């Protein structure tokens, strides 16, 4: 049996399908435009000097961003050391121990922190670190990024710990293992790929953050003198160079963006490959 308007309805269906495909295509086109443009403009400007030298004085052509790369590694590394463990332990607490009332408030706070704009985290780090020390410092930048990292890692860890089947835990407990050993030796290893994925995604996210570093790490055109002093970082350098009036700095901004983007995308892809492995591969 044929409905009278069947052809028209099918046409509408085809039109809607095409339209929705076009929307998805648009998003993909945006991604590829960014990747292609950064790759073509940035890769050409990257060379050995760029990676290993300090910035030249203003107005001189050339020089590199070695201090920014090292600074980013230090700031992000310390942020991961501060925020990662708190996030993972908090996430384990939520999934293994918390009564529903406590869990509600912890989750609520984590979600609230997660939604706070990163620049507001910068203000927070400024008021608890920079003001008392009376100096911009890499440490303040690390604190700002660490606070951003905590809720991301926490919610993710909780989610993956929850996926560990009850029977696995019960099996361990039935053998007389104390609960903490059961969590650390049985449940956590089972959830480890997911937990690490979350950590890696979180780190790749904070590595690209610029706003919270402007008035915490502040930036530095020389090698930094330690975590308690102003420190250069890659995203901040890209920003400074991009809004500068110098042609050569623009070129270096593209090159810096290329390096940052490569790092972020590699971390992202690695993280997702990690999760592809069947959970519970640890036997």
């Amino acid at each position: 049996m044929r409905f009278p308007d069947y052809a028209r309805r099918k046409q509408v269906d085809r039109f809607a399908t095409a339209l929705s495909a076009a929307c998805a295509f648009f998003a993909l086109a945006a991604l590829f435009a960014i990747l292609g443009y950064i790759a073509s403009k940035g890769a050409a400007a990257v060379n050995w000097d760029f990676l290993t030298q300090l910035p030249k004085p203003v107005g001189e052509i050339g020089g590199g961003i070695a201090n920014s790369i090292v600074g980013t590694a230090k700031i992000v590394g310390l942020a991961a050391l501060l925020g990662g463990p708190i996030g993972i332990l908090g996430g384990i607490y939520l999934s293994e121990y918390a009564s529903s009332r406590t869990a509600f408030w912890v989750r609520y706070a984590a979600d609230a922190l997660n939604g706070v704009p990163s620049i507001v985290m910068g203000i927070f780090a400024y008021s608890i670190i920079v003001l008392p020390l009376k100096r911009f410092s890499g440490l303040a930048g690390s604190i700002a990024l660490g606070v951003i990292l905590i809720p991301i890692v926490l919610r993710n860890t909780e989610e993956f710990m929850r996926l560990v089947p009850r029977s696995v835990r019960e099996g361990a407990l039935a053998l007389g293992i104390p609960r903490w050993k059961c969590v650390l030796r049985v449940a956590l290893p089972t959830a480890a790929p997911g937990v690490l994925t979350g950590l890696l995604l979180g780190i790749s996210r904070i590595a690209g953050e610029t706003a919270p570093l402007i008035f915490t790490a502040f930036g530095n055109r020389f090698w930094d003198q330690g975590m308690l002093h102003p420190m250069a970082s890659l995203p901040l350098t890209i920003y400074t160079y991009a809004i500068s009036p110098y042609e050569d700095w623009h070129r270096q901004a593209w090159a810096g963006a290329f390096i940052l983007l490569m790092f972020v995308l590699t971390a992202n892809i690695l993280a997702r490959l990690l999760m592809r492995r069947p959970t519970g591969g640890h036997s």
Partner: protein
Amino acid sequence: MIPVIARSIARSGVKKVAGPRERAGDRVFQAALCAAAMSVVALALALACRLSIDSRLLWKAMGPGFLWGTTWDPVAEVFGALPFIFGTLVTSALALLIAVPLGIGAAVFLSEMAPRRVAAVCGFLIELLAAVPSVIIGLMGIFVLVPVVRSVEPFLISTLGRLPLFSGFPYGVGMLSAGLVLAMMVLPYITTITREVLMTVPSSLKEGALALGATRWETVHTVSLPYARSAVVGAVFLALGRALGETMAVTMVIGNTPKISASLLDPGYSMAAVIANEFAEATSDAYVHALIGIGLVLFVLTLLINGCARWMILRLARPAGAR
């Protein structure tokens, strides 16, 4: 059965089920975990407290009039945040206007229309778009988008220039560019969340519609979208929360001029951008407190919006009858 378990416990070398040492271990472990979890609550409270305390001079000097004052003159210590609030709201609204239809369209394609493999690859790539750091989007904005916008704007002015929305001069930088950049940044969020939401629609409902002879599009717009409506609105709100707080990309293309103009082509300023630009150079205490005050407004705004968003997404998680 019981002797077997007992024997296996005995063989595993555990003598007592939980000796005092193990119980102490349990207590220490739980306390450590609890401390980590509670520190998150403490951080959230500390954040709210610091923002309030460190903006006290502002509230003392300006009062709530800060929110609707239109003059921003740090030298005279007159602080009115309306131009920034206006800029943030207009650019975010523009971004949603562009990104919501695109995002929902893309999500419908990925979750309902596309073959599974295509959907998996596209979904992955769109999540990668969300991972691109905002400073890189801003860089593209300055050197690629702004010149394009600048070349299109004369055409907009000549055709639609009689509307106040499209009057003025073709600067390139301005509200329009900021809105476009923001749209690009929230698009992957809307797409990813909406896609996840649409995948929770029970397949029995969709199959019911298909079995009744509905085409796929009819299934989407009569079954899937209405079922997931509240969560889709939640996704839009989450994206709005992102857009309001987005700093770098907006700062780089909005023009950084604290004025309120009806035209989208005119340069403006946003709350996050003024903090980013002026914080490190703020000299007086009153100035710093004013900027932190803007941060507090931004904080409260995103808190409210994200709260709404989560509530709407959670509503979907409940059984349909309870709604």
